[in-house]
């Protein structure tokens, strides 16, 4: 390895889905374009296996990387290993999901966050649904993995929208981010509450499962919103089967964070606070 090129360790939650895959590709393209650093990326086999991300960070420290750019698997469990990295003189940038403020304070570290506001995004898409349904619209939430930080944020955002749009929340259940489970769980919710008017799905994979369940039940009157803007939902948005989703520009997120990291490594000023990245509501009108 050329000693003059700084090494950046990119730690992501998973490489096994579209969202993080886009993110990695964005980072790789960025790496090729800049050409002045070396990129090492790791993912986890299972999004709840926090330990393997801790292991990954420890391995980065052993390899002596110059910067670690991390989308934490858990906002608290990652604090200790990242502190260890910082103590070893490694620049750490936190993106995608913010580390927990309290945990950071307890550990005595100060770390900026580069990333989107999940809760705001969820609120945005929830409000789009509220606007469509009008006050008193009956909705259900399909949650992400219980215990996952972004799932919790998105649920809060949905609940914000329910409150501000004066919607009626009939039920809220997890489908563990999965299409097939969302399909089953939602079919069953629909049986229990035939009067559902709108569905807030915490990611697009689950939204796809919900849309299929509506197709199967022949219900065209129910509106669905998702999150992430994965390529597979483009046709659904165009057909009007999906009302809206949120784009967090994942492909640029990692690249941006790496830029920030390299600035610090090159002697730039320390980052502080929350450097918010773009989020955008995607509907029929602006889908690509």
């Amino acid at each position: 390895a050329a000693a003059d090129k700084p090494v950046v360790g990119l730690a992501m939650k998973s490489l096994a889905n579209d969202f993080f895959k886009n993110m990695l590709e964005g980072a790789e393209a960025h790496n090729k374009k800049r050409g002045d650093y070396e990129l090492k990326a790791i993912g986890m086999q299972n999004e709840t296996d926090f330990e393997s991300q801790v292991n990954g960070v420890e391995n980065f420290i052993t390899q002596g990387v110059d910067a670690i750019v991390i989308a934490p698997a858990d906002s608290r469990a990652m604090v200790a290993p990242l502190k260890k990295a910082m103590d070893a003189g490694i620049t750490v940038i936190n993106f995608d999901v913010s580390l927990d403020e309290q945990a950071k304070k307890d550990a005595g570290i100060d770390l900026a966050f580069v990333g989107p506001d999940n809760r705001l995004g969820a609120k945005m898409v929830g409000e789009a649904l509220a606007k469509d349904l009008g006050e008193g619209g009956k909705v259900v939430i399909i949650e992400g993995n219980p215990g996952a930080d972004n799932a919790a944020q998105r649920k809060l955002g949905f609940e914000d929208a329910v409150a501000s749009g004066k919607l009626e929340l009939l039920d809220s259940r997890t489908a563990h981010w999965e299409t097939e489970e969302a399909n089953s769980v939602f079919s069953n919710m629909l049986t229990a509450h035939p009067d559902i008017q709108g569905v807030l799905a915490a990611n697009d994979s689950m939204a796809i499962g919900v849309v299929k369940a509506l197709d199967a039940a022949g219900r065209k009157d129910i509106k669905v919103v998702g999150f992430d803007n994965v390529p597979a939902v483009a046709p659904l948005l165009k057909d009007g089967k999906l009302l809206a989703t949120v784009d967090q520009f994942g492909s640029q997120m990692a690249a941006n964070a790496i830029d920030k990291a390299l600035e610090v490594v090159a002697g730039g000023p320390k980052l502080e606070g929350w450097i918010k990245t773009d989020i955008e509501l995607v509907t029929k009108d602006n889908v690509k």
Partner: protein
Amino acid sequence: MHAIDNTPSNDSRDKQMPKMSMKLVLRDAGIGIALLLLIAFFSLSTQHFLNPNNISNILTQITINLILAIGMTFVILIGGIDLSVGSILALCAVVGGTVLTIPDLAVWQAVCLATLAAMATGVVCGLFNGWISAFWGLPSFIVTLGMLNIARGAALQVTDARTIYSFPQTFNDFGSKMVFGVPVVFLIALALVALAWFVLSKTVFGRLLYGIGNNEEAVRLAGHSLMIYKVAAFTIAGALVGIASIIYMARLNIASPIIGIGFELNAIAAVIIGGTSLSGGRGTVIGTLLGACIIGVLANGLILFGLSDFMRQMITGVVIILAVIIDKYRERITAG
């Protein structure tokens, strides 16, 4: 047993025959009773359970698990286990999905080719599982645990972790087609159950699978090659995973390399709740059908019942155990 005649006397046999078949019926009946209890409970306690729409929902929802569980029945009957079905499902789906989205093919061509490709993928994985475990005499638990990782890695590698979508519309429609209120995909699964039942109970091949599960050495010494039958059981399981993957795609219109995680445990649960012995040699595919129904009814009923997600999970665990306890209890009673 008193009169010592050396041919089975007809009178005593005739007396015993109805009793025997009663017992055979009762064998599956234990599970059937558990299922009926569940259905009765949810019918009384929830409003929509017996609604025809809900019934067809349930049938759709158990289809994939049922098909996987049929294959698992073959494997468990010979005393094996297959932990890799979930991963193989993903691999079959991405292979099938890739074929399905080849441009410039007529829909029927694309569907036929995709089905063939998915089944071929499943067959290859099954052959690998069966051959490695039979040839080296390794426990299938560990071989299929390896395959679980291999097939998942391969599915991610060939798709580069991307979801495949945009399947032909007629194909997608097929996934939610109904005949007299019964989902077509469930009818396919039912046909597979019937076929498996026939193979297992009426053919020489099935007889030997049971034999191997009971006493492998006796079957070997009676002049049969164990290898063929073991490999065949895993291969059948693989082929069924291929079929399940096509149905998965028709239902959800996507093929993703991360689908099917944990499906193996559901399939195994269906088989065991259905009364098949994990050590092999005993069980029926009808039991498996009932087992899959129990799991499906439970998942559906508990949501209608309005239980929280976490309570639902706990109760699912309790019912899995209760179902086998009921089965055991009935066995004790009828045996005594």
